[in-house]
């Protein structure tokens, strides 16, 4: 393994998260299509999202999207701002920090229903 530094890891994560999100997107397009088969089919399939394991997958998706988005901005800044490359490492840490900062509250909203807490108000999570 080459002992690269922040740049190498930021890229690897960017690639993995990008591909992960893409995979999810493709699955998501399929499941959304179910809506065309009427309420019954759709709502039943939707139950799956309440499943704690699937919720964890959602968490991964959210983290991936957040990281990928922020790091995408980092890359764009490096590309378009001539002094950007000097701060690439700092920006990488900022990306990680932002990812965590914005992930935690979102994770809370996603996970809470499992424990019967319904921050959104209309809790109809279906316990296993």
């Amino acid at each position: 393994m080459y002992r690269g530094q922040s740049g190498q890891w930021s890229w690897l994560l960017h690639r993995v998260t990008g591909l992960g999100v893409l995979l999810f997107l493709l699955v998501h397009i399929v499941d959304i299509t179910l809506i065309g088969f009427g309420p019954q089919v759709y709502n039943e399939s939707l139950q799956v999202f309440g499943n704690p394991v699937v919720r964890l997958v959602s968490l991964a998706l959210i983290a991936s999207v957040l990281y990928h988005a922020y790091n995408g901005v980092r890359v764009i800044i490096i590309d378009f701002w001539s002094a950007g490359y000097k701060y690439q490492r700092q920006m990488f840490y900022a990306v990680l920090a932002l990812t965590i900062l914005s992930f935690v509250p979102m994770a809370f909203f996603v996970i809470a229903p499992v424990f019967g807490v319904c921050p959104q108000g209309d809790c109809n999570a279906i316990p296993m």
Partner: protein
Amino acid sequence: MATRVTTNPKVSPFGTTPKPGAGSGAWETFSWYFFRVSGVALILLVILHLVIMHVTNDVSSTTYDFVAHRYANPFWRVYDLTLLTLALLHGLNGLRIVCDDYIRTRGTRLAVQSVLFLTAVFFWLMGTMTIITFQPGKTVAASILGLLHH
């Protein structure tokens, strides 16, 4: 360790102004640009989408009725369509780049790219169909028939 390259931008112009010319150069340049432009657009689109679906509502409450209610406003249809299109193109273009990294032979590369292209078309049609034709209470088949009647 690195110092700077950029100090004084004043350099006399070189030869003819380079416009990324014909051929694969223009396409690769465009693809690179597209990543950035679609990326910026996607930040707004995806994050808002996530917030709506996972934060302000719980996923399990995004039921048929929820969708019906939302799609009553055409804005959300346009929104979702844009999201779908950009994310698919951006993501599959990314996958193309990744494949390009690892595939050396021209033939295989061409084959893989064709598959990716077909995938894009297929999934885009599938998603688009759902978004455009969705009408509360009707199945896809019915909606399509309905559309044809009009």
